[in-house]
């Protein structure tokens, strides 16, 4: 096991040190344990590792001491394979799935988002705009699944102009606010985009 002490190191240094360790051991594989002093660093390391298709477990030792363990498999090709699979972006431009009865559409979409949590490698990024913005808001029936995805390292962004338009900005319940430029960038850089 390769141990890294990143206590007292500012963001994004813990992520950089974790990446460096992964790079060093990826031929032989192994475990990396990185100790950090804040939860943001834990989340950032998890996001980075998930992005590379690696499994992580984290633990809070004390108030200001956390460890993240990253499992690096032996086979480098496999690592790259999972990495390319993980670059999936799903864009939700509406709050239902498919045309037809709105209640059925809402149910289908809830079930779809639940299924995303069951994927071996969760999507990298979920984008919500137009009436899709209601899905990340208080009262949405998919919030638990979305929060689970965030824990697994998925990024969630909702269009700020849409939140303003529907006057629901104050009640955003999960993820971050983005703008059209952010949405365009995420889509342009994704390997695969699924649009709803």
């Amino acid at each position, binding site marked *: 096991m390769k141990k890294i002490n990143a206590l007292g190191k500012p963001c994004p240094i813990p992520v*950089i040190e974790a990446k460096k360790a992964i*790079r060093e051991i990826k031929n032989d594989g192994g475990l990396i344990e990185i100790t950090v002093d804040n939860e943001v660093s834990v989340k950032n390391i998890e996001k980075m590792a998930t992005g590379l298709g690696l499994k992580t477990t984290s633990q809070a030792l004390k108030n200001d001491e956390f460890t993240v363990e990253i499992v690096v498999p032996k086979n480098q090709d496999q690592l790259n394979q999972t990495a390319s699979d993980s670059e999936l972006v799903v864009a939700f431009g509406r709050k239902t799935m498919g045309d037809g009865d709105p209640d059925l559409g809402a149910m289908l979409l809830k079930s779809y988002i639940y299924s995303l949590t069951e994927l071996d490698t969760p999507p990298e990024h979920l984008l919500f705009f137009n009436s899709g913005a209601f899905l990340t808001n208080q009262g949405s029936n998919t919030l638990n699944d979305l929060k689970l995805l965030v824990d697994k390292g998925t990024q969630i962004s909702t269009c700020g102009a849409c939140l303003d338009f529907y006057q629901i900005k104050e009640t955003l319940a999960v993820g971050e606010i983005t703008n059209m430029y952010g949405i365009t960038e995420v889509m342009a850089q994704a390997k695969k985009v699924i649009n709803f």
Partner: protein
Amino acid sequence: MDFLSQCTSGGCGAKIGPNELAGFLGGVPKFSDEKLLVDFNASDDAAVYQVSEDLALISTVDFFSPMVEDPRTFGRIAAANALSDVYAMGGEVLFALNLVCFPEKMAKQKLSEILIGGAEKLKEAQASLAGGHSIYDHEPKYGLAVTGQVDPKKIIHNNTPKVGDILILTKALGVGLVQSAVRGGVACKTSEKAAIASMERLNKYAAEKMRDFPVHACTDVTGFGLLVHASEMAGADVTLVIDPEQLPLLPHAYHYAEEFLATAAGQRNRQFLETKIDLTNTTPAFQEILFDPQTSGGLLISVAANKAVECLAAIQKDDPVAAIIGEVCQKESDQSIIIV
């Protein structure tokens, strides 16, 4: 007569490649006295000459052909770029002399616009314009010879980072890529504007902030691109670890890199370092960004880790794109830079 189309290649992209330059300089006979604290052997950003115990003069010169269509903007960029070396060394600018090459047949109005742009930036830097020299040439070129001052004990060198330091970059990368997209007629206005604002931006503000912190090394990132300047900073004794995903980028610069809108100068920078750095895990687009020549780029600052967050916050007040991009480690596997 068109301003930009007259020029073969503009900005810091026109710099002679680092490899070629080292070759040319090898045979130059040398004379220097002990008061010359920093000469070109150190590949530092400017020359420093000690005048008295607590005063040294910084002397630097920079000029190039236009990289933008508007002459006044070009003047501002050239001046910001020329002043930058003084800031990178921790100094203050005192005065500057204009250097001008201008085609006999081009409208003289354009020359006056260039000079106005340059003078605007000198005024902002509170530096006097003390004169200059101009000649006729096929292509317009403009720059400045700049004199500054520094306390010899407080000179910040470009190659003295300490193990454990954090690296901060103060301007977004991708200037060369965006300019190349502009020339190809495929750049969007947002990125063109952002690139111009970045090139015009004085490094004065970031430099003033860094004086309050334990900065061990600093350089300005220009024509040789982030990686070559970073490898100069690393020297022989340490390894700089840089994470491309932390780099501040101009809007769409990554996209233009993916489209291989790279410059010839970027390729020269790549040839200089290619055999010395392992880029197998770095996407081709990030590679282009790391080698992209930056006209009037930002400062790369190596600051003690325990003050890095404060230093960054101070710089971000006026230069919000500044970011932590890596750290300084003990020399590892004979690499001066490791890209994670």
